[in-house]
């Protein structure tokens, strides 16, 4: 995001304030649609008193049935936990809780609230619409990593592709994925339908990519006679153990070290299921 403002030669040209521009553009965009605009899982509508935000599933629900908020900063609490009380490390995950309405007085309040619900979503939306959003591809992002994340630099292209399918598609993240593996290698996962652009692998993705890199390493040396890796067997046993109790309890959203993590299971569906059912056409997607 370093080049979103025009090049400046001296120190005199007035600074272009992209954030303020985005705030105004978003409010105007909302104002143009009397029925409101959808952004992530939220519907934002202009009202005579200001702006009103609610979960898309709560359109038309009367106030008596909702918790009514009047302070834009309360959006942070709304965005913090799922309906089940689970912590939400990724705000674009499709698990925003319902049951609230937030009324703010003005454009500034709207900007504050939106930035708690979808951090930096409005400014990226604005830049994307103007064709000015700078994209950082996976390899460029990985090259920057250090410490325990340095190993993501060694993730294969195929690993990046599968990680993106498992981590970024609309079933698990509502952002529209815009980054590629590198300049010459387009990302193949579905970008997503939503309004909020994703210009660069996020910290959840990098952490997931690290886990996938560890899986890849196993594949080189630790496969058993039927071609399963230790962690694949660990996941299968955990799944059987859990299912045998009658209910499968999933690990937390970003707990990638745990076998029963949703993204980890999505990755297994892409890489393990084809191994287990070699006769079936593995490329057939299951949506129907």
């Amino acid at each position, binding site marked *: 995001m370093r080049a979103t403002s025009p090049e400046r030669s001296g*120190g005199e040209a007035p*600074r272009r304030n992209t954030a303020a521009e985005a705030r105004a553009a978003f409010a105007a965009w909302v104002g143009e649609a009397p029925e409101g605009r959808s952004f992530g899982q939220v519907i934002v509508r202009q009202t005579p008193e200001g702006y009103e935000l609610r979960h898309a599933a709560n359109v038309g629900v009367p106030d008596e049935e909702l918790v009514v908020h009047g302070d834009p900063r309360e959006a942070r609490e709304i965005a913090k936990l799922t309906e089940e009380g689970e912590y939400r490390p*990724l705000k674009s995950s499709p698990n925003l809780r319902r049951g609230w309405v937030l009324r703010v007085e003005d454009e500034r309040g709207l900007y504050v609230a939106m930035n708690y619900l979808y951090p930096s979503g409005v400014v990226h939306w604005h830049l994307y619409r103007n064709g000015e959003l700078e994209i950082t591809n996976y390899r460029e992002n990985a090259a920057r990593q250090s410490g325990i994340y340095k190993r993501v630099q060694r993730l294969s292209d195929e690993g990046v592709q599968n990680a993106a399918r498992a981590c970024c598609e609309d079933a698990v993240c509502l952002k529209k994925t815009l980054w590629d593996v590198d300049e010459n290698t387009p990302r193949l996962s579905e970008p997503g339908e939503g309004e909020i652009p994703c210009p660069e692998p996020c*910290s959840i993705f990098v952490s997931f990519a690290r886990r996938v890199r560890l899986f890849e390493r196993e594949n080189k040396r630790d496969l058993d006679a039927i071609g399963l890796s230790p962690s694949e067997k660990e996941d299968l046993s955990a799944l059987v153990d859990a299912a045998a109790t009658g209910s499968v309890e999933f690990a937390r959203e970003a*707990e990638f070290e745990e076998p029963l993590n949703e993204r980890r299971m999505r990755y297994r569906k892409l890489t393990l299921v084809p191994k287990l059912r070699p006769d079936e056409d593995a490329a057939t997607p299951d949506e129907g």
Partner: protein
Amino acid sequence: MKALIIVGHGSHLNEDSSLPVYEHAALVRDHYTGEFDEVVECFWKEEPSMRHVLDMVESENITVVPAFISEGYFTQQVIPRELGLDGPVTHRDGRTIRYAGPLGTFEGMPDVILERADDLLKGKGTRPGRTALVLLGHGTDLNKNSGGVVYLNAERIRERGVYDLVEVGFLDQDPPIAEVVEGVEAENVVLIPVFIAEGWHTRETIPEDLGLTGEVTERADKTIFYGAPVGTHPSVADLIVSRARETEGREAELARDVS
């Protein structure tokens, strides 16, 4: 316009890590009205990320304060890299971004530790005899200075002569905290974690390893008072503002150095 950006570590697993950052930001908004037009939180592992926070901020005059205890891997490598900072003062796209030092080395830190200890002891009976303050640090190999900052604060508090003894112990380096607490020759031991947030260690491993039963643990030879991490104390909000103010003179200083 002027902005304060508070940088926290954040967590993928729970809200403990970011909570103090949000609380301090809210206190700064309330108590220092007019000083900053924007007070914005950002994180390494949560959103908004350091990578994107500058996009969201409208101000041209920005101070970044890391809500970290010690100078090290995060404050020297990760934060400047992710925010794209050139050093203590960065000029970019018509903006000035000042980068403050971490909280633990700041001269105001001993006051916050002492306040934390006072709050802990308030209304609780102490045994007759000596009272020791024991500062608990993390001490990791990733961050060579994390021990140093605990010793620095212990020394500064010792100089004030408020406690009979001021000792230091660590989780991941010598001296181990359990030995320090066992060995300290005092009837009352006030144990304060010099951490920025609550977490697995402060809630689980430390009480377990030391056999603590809560805020007050009675042993045959001593009473142990166990405090919340210093980073969660409301006065840290003041510390953050002081850190931010301190950076303001910097540009003038730098200009002087150059000429």
